């Protein structure tokens, strides 16, 4: 605030001074020069009249001569002062307009407005640094669930893109360098409602700096970071960064799990997908045989490590092995885009292919060549840029690895439905039969679309009726919650996935499980079921109806009317 105010004052000093001097001189001249009254007697113009005359002379040049017709001497003076005062006015106004267009001022104004908006945030929010592919996907995921976000990005173009994107909630955005603690602070790092900081810039060092600043300035904030190298990851972990996501490692692990347990992977895929998308098909990556990995960079190494743990036979193709290092199996020298190199890696004998270089054109070319040589391959392609999505969709890869989408999805799940992360961890210990039966139940529930996943916390604010149910003598089980509040004969289309009761985690809780204050629940199903269930959670009449089947009249007058009606 101060900066802008003083900036304007300082810049306006000269124009204002010129204006004052021009007025004073013009007024003095008018008052000094002898005048005539209506009868031709000599008189002088008073200072008041001089001020009045000069005021309208300098702003509009359509005027009469007041209070009396001027003498010729006065007219000479007026013709001089008209030019001076008008010019000074134009100069002063032009200066003010130029000042408003000044980029320094505009940036100061934008920053001030941003600070005010952040300060006035009334709901919990997340501070997201970096609005690239990952950041924009994450912001969309958060705002779709009515969570709030504040964005900082160094690129003004991305900030204007954000303003064009259609978000469900208002997202304040600032164009600033997130590495500076000042910018983080003005974006609400110290705000009591700031739930956490998410560092998603494409520069590892910047993410590291953001994490450090966040931990130092607000020790209670949750810090979530993207890290592309193990060094940075270890560094971030050393000072207590809460969650660190390495897209390459995350995807390689995902494939490794998919090889072992395709159904489980499908289940987690569906639950963490965007509601309303068409449900995805399961992948069945071959679990024995030879895999060819093209590119032995960060992604290639992660894939190598996880596939090796599965006991698969691996061949690696790398164009610059002296830079990346050489795995135990040795390396086929080349890019993999030519048939010769692929043949050398015995592609015809292989069951799987990983096209994992950091160049999208190379990856596409590898996939196309390899599929020509061996059409039965299971192909994993790394997609570096989101704009190449259509090409990758057509090339015939079975799984596409896009770093930004993976990270955005993981972080979204972590922030929007933290219980889902717990659920995935628990599900990992279950067998495939368990997973496939749950998948079948979900298909029956939601048909062709991704299921909607939501959490219920039984507390005063989010489940008002349920929280007080025990005091009112109502016996509420999970089954009660799954009845439609409009017609209790009907079931809501939802499945309870996880119940957390007194610190105990119950996977797929039984329907006769009692629900008590303080419990946390995870459901999946139709979005519509959630809104119905909210009625039961918040409205005591709806709850009483689904629990007992009677809709009692609660107000004094209504009870009186009911008592009057009953005898008849």
């Amino acid at each position: 605030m101060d900066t802008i105010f003083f900036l304007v004052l300082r810049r306006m000093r000269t124009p204002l001074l010129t204006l004052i001097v021009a007025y004073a001189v013009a007024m003095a001249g008018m008052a000094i020069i002898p005048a005539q009254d209506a009868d031709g007697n000599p008189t002088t113009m008073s200072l008041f009249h001089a001020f009045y005359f000069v005021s309208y002379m300098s702003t509009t040049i359509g005027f009469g001569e007041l209070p009396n017709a001027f003498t010729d001497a006065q007219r000479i003076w007026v013709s001089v002062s008209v030019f001076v005062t008008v010019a000074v006015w134009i100069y002063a106004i032009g200066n003010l307009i130029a000042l408003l267009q000044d980029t320094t001022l505009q940036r100061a104004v934008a920053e001030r407005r941003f600070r005010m908006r952040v300060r006035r945030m009334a709901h919990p929010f997340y501070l997201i640094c970096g609005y690239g592919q990952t950041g924009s996907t994450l912001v969309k995921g958060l705002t779709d669930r009515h969570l709030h976000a504040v964005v900082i990005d160094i690129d003004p173009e991305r900030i204007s893109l954000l303003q064009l994107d259609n978000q469900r909630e208002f997202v304040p955005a600032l164009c600033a360098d997130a590495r500076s603690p000042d910018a983080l602070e003005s974006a609400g790092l110290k705000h009591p409602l700031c739930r956490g900081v998410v560092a998603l810039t494409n520069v590892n060092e910047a993410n590291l700096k953001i994490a450090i600043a966040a931990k130092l300035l607000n020790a209670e904030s949750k810090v979530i970071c993207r890290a592309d190298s193990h060094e940075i990851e270890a560094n971030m972990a050393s000072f207590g960064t809460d969650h660190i996501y390495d897209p390459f490692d995350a995807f390689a692990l995902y494939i490794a799990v998919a090889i072992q347990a395709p159904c489980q992977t499908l289940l987690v895929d569906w639950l963490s997908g965007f509601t309303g998308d068409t449900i995805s098909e399961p992948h069945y990556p071959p679990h024995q045989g030879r895999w060819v990995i093209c590119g032995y960079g960060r992604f290639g190494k992660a894939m190598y490590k996880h596939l090796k743990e599965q006991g698969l036979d691996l061949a690696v193709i790398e164009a610059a092995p002296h830079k990346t290092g050489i795995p135990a199996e040795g390396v086929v020298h080349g890019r993999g885009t030519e048939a010769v190199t692929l043949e050398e890696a015995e592609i015809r004998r292989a069951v799987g292919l990983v096209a994992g270089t950091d160049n999208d054109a190379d990856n596409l070319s590898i996939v196309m060549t390899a599929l020509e040589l061996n059409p039965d391959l299971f192909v994993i392609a790394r997609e570096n840029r989101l704009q190449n999505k259509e090409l990758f969709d057509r090339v015939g890869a079975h799984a596409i690895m896009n770093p930004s989408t993976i990270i955005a999805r993981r972080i979204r799940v972590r922030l929007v439905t933290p219980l889902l992360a717990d659920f995935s961890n628990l599900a990992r210990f279950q067998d495939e039969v368990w997973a496939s039966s749950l998948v079948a139940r979900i298909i029956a529930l939601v048909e062709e679309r991704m299921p909607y996943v939501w959490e219920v916390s039984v507390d005063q604010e989010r489940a008002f009726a349920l929280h007080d149910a025990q005091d009112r003598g109502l016996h509420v089980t999970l089954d009660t919650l799954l009845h439609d509040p409009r017609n209790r004969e009907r079931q809501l289309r939802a499945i309870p996935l996880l119940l957390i009761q007194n610190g105990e985690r119950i996977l797929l809780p039984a329907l006769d499980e009692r629900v008590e204050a303080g419990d946390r629940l995870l459901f999946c199903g139709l979005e519509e079921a959630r809104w119905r269930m909210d009625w039961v959670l918040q409205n005591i009449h709806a709850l009483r109806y689904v629990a007992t089947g009677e809709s009692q009249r609660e107000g004094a007058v209504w009870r009186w009317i009911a008592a009057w009606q009953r005898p008849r």
Partner: protein
Amino acid sequence: MNPEKVVFGFFIVLALTLNFGFFVGELDNPSHHHAWELFAVVVVNMIATVLKFGDRTQMGAVLLATSLVAMLQLIAASLVWTFAVYATDAGLTASIMASIVSLSGGAMIANVVSVTLLVIETVMLRR
């Protein structure tokens, strides 16, 4: 020597001296207080006020505040004068002259504070 400081000090002191010039004389005697003097005081005070714009120091803020007080008093004085002469039948009576001059007296105190602050600042700079 900083020419900016010279201009600054000049106008602040001039505002005080002109103000004093208008103020001296019998309180309610119109012939002791001339309209032109008041005009000059208002103009010089305006210039002094604008010169104080944009100074972020604590001293600058107080200086600006005293100038704004002086402006308020002086504009009130000139309005009273204008109303008395042009908007009332009684004209410039002794009692109205007295209130005009006492208003300018208030402005003079503000100007005195201003000059004192200026002197203090200068002395502190010397040390």
